[in-house]
């Protein structure tokens, strides 16, 4: 028996008519004491299935706020947000929790894995909150770990894994519910450059082979170049939105790199 979402994931055909993300004039105002901070000033954006978008911007540009809203962690002050065609801009806290569970996979800068919890259990975490039977949850978590190439480390704990491996576990966790959208917030921020390329190769592979729609937030131009489209945010507005010219191919770069030296391998 195959999960219905698997079918969609395995067929990278675009359902171009319905954007995964559709933002219409999104405003976000924070009330800090007597001062109103206008973090987003009318953002409109559409992301279609199979896209790989990098959102760039300096700190304070509003890109984190944008990510929180797209990730249904926060609600816009004004404007409409349609996720998979569904208006999610006015949902309650618990309704947003359900949407995050079913439609969004998060990958964070600091991995955000649970301590003293095996890789397998970490990957199962989202399934815990939607009533998936345990046997089914284990099977799906194992498959997600296999996709990121960590099936052998299923029973390792986060402190036994390298940074790159921990981030792969986090990606597996984001994958396990077959989300419509994968949101990655500075996923390479804590990693060295070689591991960063390695992680970007995982994202590129998911995007190319499984048609996974990915929205990546970064402030590094060279990381953004692994995406297909770059959106630049400044002062709460989108100032540039263009396809990536000279797109980088992480898998190819890794293959061309000199092999790791013995001592470096020992560290990992």
């Amino acid at each position, binding site marked *: 028996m195959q999960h219905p979402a698997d079918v969609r994931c395995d067929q990278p055909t675009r359902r171009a008519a319905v954007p995964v993300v559709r933002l219409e004039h999104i405003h976000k105002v924070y009330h800090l004491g007597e001062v109103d901070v206008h973090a987003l000033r009318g953002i409109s954006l559409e992301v279609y299935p199979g896209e790989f978008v990098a959102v760039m911007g300096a700190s304070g540009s509003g890109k984190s706020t944008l990510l929180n809203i797209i990730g249904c962690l926060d609600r816009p002050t004004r404007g409409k947000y349609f996720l998979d065609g569904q208006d999610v801009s006015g949902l309650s*806290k*618990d309704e947003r929790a359900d949407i995050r*569970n079913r439609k969004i996979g998060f990958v964070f800068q600091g991995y*955000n894995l*649970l301590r003293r919890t095996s890789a397998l259990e970490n990957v199962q*975490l989202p399934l815990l909150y*939607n009533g998936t039977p*345990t046997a089914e949850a284990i099977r799906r978590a194992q498959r997600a770990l296999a996709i990121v190439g960590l099936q052998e480390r299923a029973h390792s704990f986060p402190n036994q894994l390298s940074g790159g491996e921990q981030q792969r576990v986090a990606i597996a966790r984001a994958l396990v519910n077959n989300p419509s959208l994968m949101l990655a917030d500075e996923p390479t921020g804590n990693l060295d450059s070689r591991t960063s390329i390695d992680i970007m190769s995982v994202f590129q592979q998911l995007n190319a082979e499984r048609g996974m729609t990915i929205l990546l937030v970064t402030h590094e131009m060279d990381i953004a170049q692994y995406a297909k489209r770059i959106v630049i945010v400044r002062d709460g507005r989108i100032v540039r939105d263009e396809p990536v010219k000279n797109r980088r191919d992480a898998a190819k770069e890794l293959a061309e790199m000199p092999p790791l030296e013995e001592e470096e391998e020992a560290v990992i």
Partner: protein
Amino acid sequence: MNVSSILKVAFRELARNKARSMLTMLGIIIGVASVIAMVGLGQGAQRQVEEEIASMGTNMLVVFAGSRKTRGWHGGIGTSPTLTPEDIDAIVRECPTVALASPNVTAPVSLIFGNQNWTTRAEGVNEKYPQIRNWPVASGQFFTEGDVHTAARVCVIGQTVAEQLFPGLDPVGQTLRVRNLPFRVVGVLSERGQNQWGRDQDDVIMIPYTTAMKKLLSITHIPRAYISAISPRATFIAERQITELLRQRHHIRPGQEDDFGVHNLTDIAEAAEETNRILTLLLSSIAGVSLIVGGIGIMNIMLVSVTERTREIGIRMAVGARTRHVRLQFLIESVVLSLIGGLLGIFLGIGVSFALSGMFNWPRLISPLAIVMSVAFSVAVGIIFGYYPAHKAASLDPIDALRYE
């Protein structure tokens, strides 16, 4: 989110900080242990009082002569010569609530048998006495109505007297001397042991009250009588009926003082039980206070735990944990903490009540109700004192929680 996975997380978290969990549980352990021990001891003490009351007699009342006033001086209780065996006969005859009655006179006596001698107390009673006091004979038989009627020189002796005067002999059928008068032993009373004031109840010799009055004391009045009512409830009516009857027989005018008294031992029993109940309640409330203190300890630690695990809460919320999932997780953790504490407390409480009952020679009573209540109470403590921290965890904002360092 199923309960087994929540429990798994809860046990992992509690095991992570073993010392902290143990110290937190200590409050509950002590609270529950004291509830179990106190209720157990209270009920044990109550059982003992009940047994003692039952050993005093069945539905018993004591009628005693009042004090005699001679030329302005009050004598002691029982000195008034107005109470007579005829009064007691009248009580049995005329009070429907009275089942049995026995006059009672007491005299210190010296006993001699062969070359043995012993000084003890002679109780003059009638043939109803064993029934009234629930005190059967162990061998032989009690003296009869005929013996009482004829003031026969027969006696029934207590175990202590039997041991002192007849070592290695069967006393039944022997003749001993009471104040130098020969008395035939017709029976030996069963062993009764000490009463609650430590007097050896077996150090006694029973003789017909008629014999005691005529042959030993030369009196015509009696200081007291034992009366058995038909039921515990009836003792209160019997008390009133006896009072009325005796006032009438003694020609006491309204407003004048009684020249006798009626003691209702059921009263004493109820007073003793009431005292015990109050004591148990008092001790249990102290134990209850310690449970509440334990609950505050749990709340404190759960608040610390929520703060420490803010990031974990953020992660869980980001991947789809609803408010109730987070709340349930922390609530279950605090209930597990208090429930384990409660179970350990039950074992400790049972141990303590065994030790204490051994020390004070009280009956061991482990009240199943107290155990069930303790478990229920510790779960309640876990829920009540875990609710606020759990609510605090559940109402965190996922963005802030994820950003928490």
